[in-house]
C-alpha cells in the first residue's frame, strides 16, 4: 500500500491572537497535484510555509516521506531539531514564492547552481550542466547569464521554479506563483507548472487561478478561516460545491 508523501495531522498555528491554522489534517499522495484555494487570510499560505518550516507549527505534526518535521520525539516529549537537521529536511521540498525572491546579485544560472553547489556540495561542472538543462526546460536557455533585473516577472518566476527543481525535491510548493505577475505573463508560468505536473511531480499549489486548478489539479482544497472547508476532485469542488462557504467564495471570485 502506498503511503502519503505528506501527512498533516491536527496542525495549529497562531500569530499572536490570530489563529492561522485550526487543527488542520490533510494527506498529499505521491504524484498528486493539489490546489489550495480560499480568501486571503484563510491559512493556505501558512500551511505551505509550515510544510517548508519557514513557520514553526504550534501543535500537531507534519510527516514528510515518513519523517516527522521540525521536532524529534524522545522520552514522551518533543524536542526541536537543530538548524542543520531542519535544513536537511527542507531539501526534500522546493518552494516557489509569490515574489520570486531570486538572488538579485547572481545570474539566472548562478541562482540555480547556488543550492546544489553550496548546500549539497556537488561538483560545479555537473551542477552547471543540470542547471542549463533546467533552464532549457523552463524555456530560458538563452537567459543563463542574465541578472534577475534584466528578466520579466514571468521569466524570473520560471528561473525560481528551476532553482527549486535543482535541489531535486520530492515535493514542490507553490505560494501564489502568478499573483505578482502582469496578466499577459501568467500563461508562461502556468505552462511550466503544467509540464511539471505531467512529469509526475507531487505539487501543492496555492493559487487563485481556478482555470489552472480545473485543468491540472487532481484535488482541490478550499480553506476558510484556518480550516479545510471542502475538498475533492476539481470538477466537484469548483463545479458543484456542497458547502455554502465554498459556493459564496466561488461566486465572489468568478
Amino acid at each position, binding site marked *: 500500500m502506498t503511503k502519503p508523501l505528506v501527512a498533516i495531522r491536527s496542525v495549529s498555528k497562531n500569530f499572536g491572537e490570530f489563529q492561522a491554522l485550526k487543527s488542520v489534517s490533510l494527506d498529499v499522495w505521491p504524484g498528486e497535484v493539489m490546489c489550495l484555494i480560499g480568501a486571503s487570510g484563510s491559512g493556505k499560505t501558512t500551511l505551505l510555509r509550515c510544510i517548508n518550516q519557514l513557520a514553526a507549527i504550534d501543535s500537531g505534526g507534519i510527516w514528510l516521506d515518513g519523517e516527522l518535521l521540525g521536532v524529534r520525539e524522545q522520552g514522551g516529549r518533543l524536542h526541536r531539531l537543530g538548524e*542543520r537537521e531542519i535544513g536537511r529536511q527542507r531539501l526534500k521540498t522546493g518552494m516557489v514564492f509569490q515574489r520570486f*525572491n531570486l538572488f538579485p546579485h*547572481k545570474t539566472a544560472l548562478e541562482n540555480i547552481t547556488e543550492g546544489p553547489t553550496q548546500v*549539497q556540495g556537488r561538483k560545479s561542472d555537473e551542477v552547471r550542466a543540470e542547471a542549463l538543462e533546467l533552464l532549457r526546460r523552463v524555456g530560458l536557455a538563452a537567459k543563463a547569464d542574465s541578472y*534577475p533585473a534584466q528578466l520579466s516577472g514571468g521569466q524570473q518566476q520560471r528561473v525560481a521554479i528551476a532553482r*527549486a527543481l535543482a535541489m531535486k525535491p520530492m515535493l514542490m510548493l507553490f505560494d501564489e506563483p502568478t499573483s505578482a505577475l502582469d496578466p499577459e505573463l501568467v500563461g508562461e508560468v502556468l505552462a511550466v507548472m503544467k509540464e511539471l505536473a505531467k512529469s509526475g511531480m507531487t505539487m501543492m499549489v496555492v493559487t487563485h487561478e481556478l482555470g489552472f486548478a480545473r485543468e491540472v489539479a487532481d484535488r482541490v482544497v478550499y480553506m476558510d478561516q484556518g480550516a479545510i472547508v471542502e475538498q475533492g476532485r476539481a470538477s466537484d469542488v469548483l463545479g458543484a460545491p456542497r458547502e455554502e462557504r465554498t459556493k459564496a467564495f466561488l461566486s465572489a471570485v468568478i
Partner: protein
Amino acid sequence: MKPAPALAGGFPDLSGMRVAREPHWFRWFSAALIVLVLAAIARAFANGQIEWSYVSRFLTVKVILEGIVNTMVMAALAMALGIVLGIVVAIMRLSPNPVLKTVAAGYTWLFRGTPLILQLLLWFNLALVFPTIGIPGLWSARAVDVMTPFLAALLGLGINQGAYTSEVMRAGMLSVDIGQYEAAQAIGMGRLRALRRIVLPQAMRVVIPPLGNEFIGMVKATSLASVIQYPELLHNAENIYYANSRVIELLIVAGLWYLLVVSILTPLQMLLERRFARGTLRLAR
C-alpha cells in the same frame, strides 16, 4: 448632436517657435558676489603672517611623508578591524540569541558613548591597571612594552569604529528583503551561510556609501592618536613646529595632505560601488 470634428479650430500654430533662454539674473549676481568674497579671503591670507615658502618647503619633507604613511597605515588597519568587528557585532545583534544580542548592544553602547580620545588614552595607559599582561603559565610581558602607541591607537580607533560600523552593517542587513532569507532557507541554507552568500553581498551595496564616509572620518580621526605619541601626520607636523615655531605653515601642510588623501578616496569609493552594484542595473544586452 453633431459628431465633434477631429480637431477643434481657434488655436494658433506654435510649430517652429522656440522657447527663449531665460536670463537668470540672480545666478550671475550671486556668482559675482561669491568670487568677490573669495578674492577678499585670498588677499587676506596672502598679506597675512604666513610664510608660504615654508609651506612648500615642508610639504614633502621626510618626516611629513612618514607621517602621512603612518596615518594611512593606521587608518586602513583600524578600519579593517572596525569592519570585522562591525560585521560580527551586527550579526550578533540580529541573532535570536538574547545573550549575543545583549553583548552586542552593550558593546555599541559603551564604545559609542565615550569620547574616542578618552578611549585612546585608556588603551595607552593600560599598564597603570595591569602592569603585566599575558596568558597564565604560557606567556607574560610588561604592559608598557606591549601597549606601544601603535597598538594603543589601533585598538582604540578600531574598536571604536567597530561600534559605529556595526550599526551601518545592521542597517545594510535590514535593508535586504526578508524574502531573500526565506529563499536561502528554502534551498537548505543555514543562517550563517545565508548571511554570507546571500544577505551580506546585497547589504554591501547599501553599506559602501556610509562606510566610505566612516573611512574618511577615520583618516582624520587618526590625528587624535597624536596625543598618545603615535607618529602620524599631525603629530609629526607638531614636532616640526615645536622646533621652528612655524605653527600655521605646518598646520597648512598637514591640512593639504589630509585634503589630498580624502580627494583620492572618493573616486575609489565609486569604483567599489560599481563592483557591488552587479545585477542592480539594467545592463545593455
